[in-house]
């Protein structure tokens, strides 16, 4: 990873680093990455060992895994498409945690097996509820000003 910017461009971070993955974004990507690994692992295990037992929660686990991987990659990578991926992933995450959180409290029978988003993510210290809020705020904050071409 190069630490200098030989091109003389003003921002010091390496050229491969996305604006959303520097500064506080570094920590955000780390936490999203953690959730991506955890959710993917859980989903793969559920689908390979007990897929027929509880189709809805397990489908949700797979969706959550996809969302967390999308958010991690979207925030970490500096490509024009990455920011859109991040917006969609974090947006779906926000809707997911609110809908699943509400449904899991209103009708516990619907989700017999806990998902990351059950009870607004209370099994994970409510981090799943906090993450999309921080993610959306960070994406809005780092939004490039219009007219500025995206750095590559």
């Amino acid at each position: 990873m190069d630490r200098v910017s030989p091109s003389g461009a003003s921002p010091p971070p390496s050229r491969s680093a996305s604006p959303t993955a520097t500064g506080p974004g570094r920590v955000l990507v780390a936490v999203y990455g953690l959730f991506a690994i955890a959710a993917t692992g859980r989903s793969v295990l559920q689908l390979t060992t007990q897929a027929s037992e509880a189709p809805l929660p397990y489908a949700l686990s797979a969706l959550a895994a996809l969302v967390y991987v999308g958010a991690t990659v979207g925030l970490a990578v500096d490509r024009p498409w990455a920011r859109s991926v991040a917006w969609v992933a974090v947006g779906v995450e926000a809707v997911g945690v609110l809908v699943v959180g509400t449904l899991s409290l209103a009708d516990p029978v619907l989700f017999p097996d806990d998902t990351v988003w059950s009870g607004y993510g209370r099994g994970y210290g409510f981090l799943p509820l906090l993450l999309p809020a921080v993610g959306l705020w960070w994406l809005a904050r780092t939004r490039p000003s219009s007219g500025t071409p995206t750095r590559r």
Partner: protein
Amino acid sequence: MVVQLQLTVVALSLLVGVVAAAYLVPDRRPDRLLLGLTALLELALVVQLVVGIVLLVSESPDISGATFVSYLVGMLLLPPVAAWWALGEPSRSGTVVLVVLGVTVPFLVLRLQQIWDPTWIV
């Protein structure tokens, strides 16, 4: 599993977290001490993986072996990835990544123990 080993993993992990947090105030970058502690944590996790697999095979408890092993392997990946991600950031935030590592691993050890022994309560 082996309590002493898991307490060692938790202690090393918390030490990484505390040292990293202490580095935030004077704004020190991760140095040999902090990275050395992270490497020690990784070593303990390698030992935990080997011991865990040996115990799984020898005692064959009535648990999901796939879940158990995926936790062992998953934990092993975290310190190197966290260190790489932390070193790529030229500000305090890189050090915060190691704080996150330090507080995450103990929770994973707790989960690992619950998977090994479902009747186990903190």
